[in-house]
């Protein structure tokens, strides 16, 4: 009979450390998914964590291990989408079902679950589950939380309402878009005022969330202009916001946050057409925004506006090629039924 090798116990004061080891590895995966260059590495690591945490996914939603397993699932779905894999959308839809669908909520003692829900609303908006994103975000923002967190969550509610309105506009439903935009503007301005107060009270670190809430407000106004409203101040205010962003430390805002602001500036050039080369400037800025996204998930208005700018600069062949590329990417994220995908496919 062969001699069995004695099992060597790992040397550690913490024999019960498995959950913390997984959490440490998850932190690593989280950072890798923030990088546009490390998507494959993030995906490999998340595949491992996804498989490790599988048994906990069906647990009680207030249980820490279950919330962690669902966080892993969320991150895994996002990494798949960034890698261009449509299974990512399925993962996010499966997660939505596990969380309770549109009625998803967190009990008063479910802080980690509430944070997961709040973060998940961004993904729901990105995969065009707009009703769920707005409903859940409103519920999460209504929880008893700190004033700072409440201001951020209000900004999020406005942002997801804005995206729902964009969907309606791209579907040709201007009447459906307008009420959302008007409500979103009120909420976004509340968030701006709250952040403004924090900054005035000496919280210098609130400058970044202040700019973010301003960006949401100005984006809502940009969409209102798309629906025919007049807003003479928008180009100047948008330029001032981008100038403030450019002057801030490079670390304060991500390229993606900057991209959408610059993209919106591009849209104003198309909307207002006040300068020589307006269409070219629009194209340059929208292209800059598109290039900045890399493999990140995108807001559907951006490729549609860039295609319009290409057409406005008399580049129909370029617009057709771009529309095909953008539609293929967007279909993975939002499904082939999304109105932006249809618009782009029709133009390709």
């Amino acid at each position, binding site marked *: 009979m062969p001699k069995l090798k004695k099992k060597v116990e790992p040397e550690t*004061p*913490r024999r019960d450390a498995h959950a*913390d080891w997984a959490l*440490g590895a998850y*932190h690593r995966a989280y950072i890798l998914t923030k990088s546009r260059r490390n998507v494959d590495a993030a995906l490999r690591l998340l595949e491992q964590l996804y498989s490790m945490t599988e048994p906990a996914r069906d647990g009680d939603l207030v249980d820490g291990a279950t919330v962690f397993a669902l966080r892993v699932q969320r991150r895994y779905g996002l990494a798949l989408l960034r890698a261009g894999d449509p299974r990512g959308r399925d993962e996010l839809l499966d997660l939505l079902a596990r969380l309770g669908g549109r009625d998803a909520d967190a009990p008063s003692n479910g802080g980690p679950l509430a944070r997961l829900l709040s973060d998940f609303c961004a993904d729901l908006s990105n995969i065009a589950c707009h009703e769920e994103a707005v409903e859940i975000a409103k519920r999460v923002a209504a929880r008893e939380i700190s004033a700072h967190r409440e201001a951020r969550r209000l900004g999020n509610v406005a942002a997801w309402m804005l995206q729902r309105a964009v969907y309606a506009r791209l579907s040709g439903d201007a009447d459906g878009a307008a009420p959302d935009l008007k409500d979103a503007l009120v909420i976004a301005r509340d968030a701006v005022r709250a952040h403004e107060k924090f900054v005035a009270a000496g919280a210098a*670190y609130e400058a970044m969330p202040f700019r973010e809430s301003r960006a949401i407000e100005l984006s809502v106004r940009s969409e209102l202009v798309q629906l025919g409203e007049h807003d003479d101040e928008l180009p100047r205010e948008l330029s001032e916001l981008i100038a403030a962003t*450019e002057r801030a*430390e490079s670390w304060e805002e991500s390229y993606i946050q900057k991209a959408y602001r610059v993209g919106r500036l591009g849209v104003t050039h198309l909307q207002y057409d006040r300068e020589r080369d307006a269409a070219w400037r629009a194209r*340059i800025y929208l292209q800059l925004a598109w290039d900045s996204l890399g493999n990140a998930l995108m807001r559907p208005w951006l490729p549609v506006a860039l295609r319009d700018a290409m057409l406005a600069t008399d580049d129909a062949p370029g617009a057709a090629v771009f529309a095909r590329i953008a539609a293929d990417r967007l279909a993975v994220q939002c499904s082939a039924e999304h109105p932006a995908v249809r618009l782009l496919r029709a133009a390709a």
Partner: protein
Amino acid sequence: MRLELGPFPEFWTVVANHRAERAAAGKDPDRTRRDRLRRNVEIAEQVQLELGDVDPNGDPDVIFQHALSHFIGDELSDFRVERFPAEKKTIKPERAWDRGAFDDMLKHFRGPELDDLEKADDHRPGRVLLLVATEYTLVPLLEGAFAAMQWGPASARYDFRSAFHTVTRWAVEVDQRSGRLVTPALTVNGVVRPWSTLTRFYAAVLGLHRPQDAAADALAERLSVVTLEALHHGFKDGEPKGAVMRRLMTEAESLGVIEEMPARAIDSAAQARTVLAELVLQGELGIAEPPFDLAGAIRVLNAEA
């Protein structure tokens, strides 16, 4: 290849001390005595239990004073009585526990950061106990993050971003009390000292990128101090964790530990385009005057393409 998560014993002070002692005695440093590991667990868990009434919210210096008060002076705490009972019964609280056994026990768990503290009112034993308990909740997270780094390497920028993120999350979410009191525990006469636990971790991360660099240990020590200062600032000023991360990344950049932020676009063709576009944008915003008609130049470039 499957990801195997497991311990990195060298991150633990008790193991690091034991290895140093064995190496100094000419013995195999890789063998660690299990009873010391077990005692480390007992001490850490008892300290955590003892600190159960310390509110983790608020000013970190106040939290530290409250935590330290459990282990200094003549006040009798459960920790002292249960762990170090006096041989003889006494009604005087200061004699109800065995101070000598306490000091002797701590010998193996002390890091180098506080060894020069000789005066009684420096409260070295109390500080050491707090660090033992603090290490207990942090190190497993560091082990998990480091195992993942070794399993799937990335650039120094993303490895250190992962490292800072793990430490910041621990302090802000996982163990808020330890996160708040670790910097005061390592602050002597207003000067923050490096935390050997964190220094060993950062040295390991640096080792993934510059294995032969003689300056790595000094850099790791500097990053250790910078991390403690950033956490303390964050808690003092009520900053969100993102602000702490920004401080750490900015400092790591200025120390040359990580590369500059990567270019805006991923592929090289787009990179050239984005550089020109940024110049156009800066011209329009009045941040910088473009040297020529950039928009026109880009138009021509596009037409030629």
